[in-house]
C-alpha cells in the first residue's frame, strides 16, 4: 500500500471511531443552546468555535458526520441494489426487456438528478428516509449501466456456453457465474456512491429540503453557518465543509488503490 492509501485508511478509521465513540462518551450535549457563548471563534475550549446559538461546532460536526455517513451508506446501498437488479435483468433477459429497461435508464438520466431529487424529497416531509429515497431513486442508473455491460461481456464468454450446455438454467448461471464476477464491480460502485450520496444529502439539507433543522447534519450546519458568514464567523460553515471533503478524498484514494490492485495490468501500463 502506498503512503497516501495508509493516510486515507487512517483518516477513515479515525472518523469512524469518532462518530461511533464520541456520542457515547461526550459530556456535552450537542443540542445544548448557550447564548452567552454564541459565535465564539476557535479556541482551546471550543476547537472549532461555536455557532450562532452557542453550540459546540466540533461536537456537532461529529454528530453531523454520523448522520451524513449513515445516510450516505444507506442511500448508496439502495441505489446500487436497485441498479444492480435492473442491470442484471436487462443483461440476462436481453431483447425487449433490455430495451425497455435501458430506455427507462435513459429517461432517468435525461432529467438533471439534483432537480429530480428535489422533486422526490418535496413529496415527503423532511426526514432521513426522504433523502435516502431521493438519492436512491436518482442514482441507480450508473450501477445499472455498469452491471448490464459486464453481464453482456460475461454472456459471450465460452464458459457460460459450457454451463448452458451442461444443463445450467438461467438462474443458476446468474448465481454461479455472473454474480461472483459482478460483485467486485458492484462493491466498487457502492463505495464510490457513498461520498456522492453524502454530497447530495448536504445539498438537499442546505436547500432546506433534506433533514429537519434540529438534526445535526453537515448540510444543515453549512446552511446555518452561511447566515453568520457575512458577520465574519467563518468557522461555523468551514469546518463542516472540511468534514465533507475529508471522507470523500479518503474514500476516493482507497478506491483508486483498490482499482489498481484489482487490475494489475492497468497499473503496469501506467508505469511504463
Amino acid at each position, binding site marked *: 500500500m502506498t503512503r497516501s492509501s495508509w493516510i486515507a485508511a487512517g483518516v477513515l478509521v479515525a472518523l469512524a471511531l469518532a462518530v461511533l465513540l464520541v456520542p457515547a462518551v461526550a459530556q456535552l450535549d450537542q443540542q445544548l443552546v448557550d447564548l452567552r457563548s454564541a459565535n465564539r471563534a476557535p479556541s482551546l475550549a471550543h476547537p472549532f468555535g461555536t455557532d450562532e446559538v452557542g453550540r459546540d461546532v466540533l461536537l456537532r460536526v461529529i454528530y453531523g458526520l454520523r448522520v451524513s455517513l449513515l445516510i450516505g451508506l444507506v442511500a448508496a446501498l439502495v441505489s446500487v441494489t436497485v441498479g444492480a437488479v435492473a442491470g442484471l435483468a436487462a443483461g440476462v433477459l436481453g431483447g425487449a426487456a433490455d430495451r425497455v429497461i435501458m430506455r427507462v435508464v435513459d429517461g432517468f438520466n435525461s432529467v438533471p438528478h439534483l432537480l429530480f431529487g428535489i422533486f422526490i424529497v418535496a413529496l415527503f416531509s423532511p426526514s432521513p428516509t426522504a433523502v435516502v429515497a431521493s438519492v436512491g431513486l436518482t442514482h441507480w442508473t450508473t450501477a445499472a449501466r455498469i452491471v448490464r455491460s459486464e453481464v453482456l461481456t460475461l454472456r459471450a464468454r465460452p464458459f457460460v*456456453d459450457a454451463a*448452458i450446455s451442461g*444443463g445450467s438454467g438461467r438462474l443458476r448461471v446468474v448465481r454461479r457465474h455472473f454474480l*461472483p464476477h459482478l460483485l467486485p464491480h458492484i462493491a466498487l460502485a457502492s463505495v464510490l456512491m457513498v461520498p456522492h450520496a453524502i454530497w447530495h444529502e448536504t445539498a438537499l439539507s442546505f436547500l432546506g429540503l433534506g433533514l429537519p433543522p434540529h438534526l445535526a447534519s453537515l448540510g444543515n450546519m453549512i446552511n446555518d453557518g452561511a447566515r453568520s458568514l457575512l458577520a465574519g464567523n467563518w468557522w461555523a460553515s468551514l469546518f463542516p465543509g472540511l468534514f465533507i471533503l475529508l471522507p470523500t478524498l479518503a474514500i476516493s484514494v482507497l478506491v483508486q488503490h483498490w482499482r489498481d490492485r484489482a487490475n494489475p495490468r492497468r497499473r503496469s501500463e501506467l508505469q511504463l
Partner: protein
Amino acid sequence: MLRADGITVAYGRQRVLRAADLTVAPGVVTGLAGPSGCGKSTLARVLALLRRPDAGRLTVDGTEVRRWRHRASRDLRTRVALIFQQPRLAVDPRLTLREIAEEPFHATGRPVEDLADEVGLTPELLVRRPHEVSDGQLQRACVARALALRPRYVICDEMTTMLDASTQAHLVARLEAYRRETGAGVLAITHDEELLTRWTEPSGGPTVRMT
C-alpha cells in the same frame, strides 16, 4: 442421429455459414475438416444448441430443435456436449477443477460421479484453479465435464489443437473408449489431417470437408 440441414448463420452482414448440411451418426466418429474461418466452430455451436441459426433445421434423434440456449429443454441440450478449443476460456476462472468437472451434476441435480480418474486428473490437481494448471490438465477437466451427463453426441471443436502429443493421444483414447462403451456419436473437428484419419478410421465414420 444429430442432423443439420441447410444451416445458415450470419454475424451482422457477414455470412459465415451458407446452407451447411451435416449428419453425426451415433456410434461412429464423424470428421469435420476445413480451413480457419470457414465456420466450423459456428456450426459446432449450432449443433450444441448454443446458437440459433438464421436459417436451416437441426434435429436431435428425430426431435426438431425450435428453442435454443437456456430456452431449449434441458434434456435436449444435455444430449449434445461441446468440448471447446481453448480450455482456458471455457472454464470459470473462479472454480476449482473439481467444481468445473462436477458442475453438470450439480446443475441437473444428479448424483455426483467421480470422473476425474478416467481423464487422468489426480486429487492434488482437482483442488487447483485454472491458472494453476496447464492447458492439457484443464482440457482433461473439460472432457470430464462434457462426458459427465453421458451425452449421446460429443462435439470436439479443435479439442487437441493446443495440447502436447501425449495429452492429445490420451484425450482421444478417452473419447474413443466413451464412444465404444455408450455408442455415442462423436464429431471430430480439426485441421490436423493425420489425427482425423487416425480418429475416424476405427469406427469407419465419414469425413466432411468444408470450404
